[in-house]
């Protein structure tokens, strides 16, 4: 069925785009265009709900509702992947920031301090 091909292709494209060049200016532009298309399709589906079923029939899906559900799954997957990768970048930045702070505020030992253990420590 056409829908199977379309959905599998969508997943493949998403994985490739996000894992390879997910944050280039071009991908960002595509994300915005996709969002715009999503809004237009939304408005259209609200105004003419019968048409989603027509489109669904073209691609081999029984009901318009099912088609919307399938597309929703692709959309959610995209969102999850996007968020995950974005968090990773944030984590890398946070690491660099924290490391920089740690290195700048390094406490050198006082050479006068005795070597002996601190009271109350138990030797492991």
């Amino acid at each position, binding site marked *: 069925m056409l829908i199977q091909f379309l959905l599998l292709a969508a997943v493949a494209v998403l994985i490739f785009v996000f894992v390879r060049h997910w*944050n280039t200016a071009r991908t960002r532009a595509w994300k915005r265009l996709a969002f715009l298309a999503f809004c237009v399709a939304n408005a259209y589906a609200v105004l003419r709900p019968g048409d989603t079923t027509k489109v669904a029939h073209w691609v081999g899906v029984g009901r318009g509702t099912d088609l919307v559900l399938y597309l929703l799954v692709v959309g959610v997957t995209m969102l999850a992947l996007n968020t995950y990768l974005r968090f990773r970048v944030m984590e890398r930045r946070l690491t660099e920031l924290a490391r920089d702070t740690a290195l700048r505020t390094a406490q050198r030992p006082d050479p006068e301090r005795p070597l002996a253990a601190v009271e109350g420590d138990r030797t492991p």
Partner: protein
Amino acid sequence: MVVTATPALGRRRAYRDVWIIIPVYNEAPVIGGVVTEVLRTFPNVVCVDDGSSDGSAERIAATRAHLLRHPVNLGQGAALETGLRYALAQPGAERFVTFDADGQHRVDDVLAMLDLAGQRSADVVLGSRFLGPEGEVPWQKRIVLRTAAAVSPTARRLKLSDAHNGLRLFNRKAASRLHITMNGMAHASEITGFLARSGLRVAEAPVTIRYTDYSRTKGQSLMNGVNILFDLSFTNKKG
């Protein structure tokens, strides 16, 4: 505890080029003792407090170790990387040892690893729990670690018997080429992966782990292995 000053001082002078890097996360009950014990042999110790909330940093500040503090908790891999960067920038630093904070590692094993690196002119020496007597390793742990070493392609290529031991020795060449990007526990696999690709001379040395009740409660769980695999599967695909 009595500290005998004279022999320790001579020994300490001989290891002035060695830096011991200890990542610390919530180890307040033992860290002071661990650091003090290491300092008796090695003059240069840097502890990286990885955002501990139990006063570990204060314990370290009371010793003669260098103290770095991550403002937030990042993970053991990140702490090791920070400590290595710091130690590499210190004048005269030539050899770098990563050492666990919970007291499971022994200073004698570090000395043996330094000797081995000299004898075999190795760039890197990794501690292995399985080269010596295995009696100390609890059997569940033995199965997990053996499996980890067996399924890891890089550990196989390097013929390692233990891919997840925290006791490691790097010379300057190896330490300056190593960049740990895995903040969490996946850094162990990241390090062996780097070593397998690097062409550095890697040796393994037998170490004995002190499995105290304290370190037992802190060890890696089996489920953490799942996290490690997940982190690693995304390592080489960053855009």
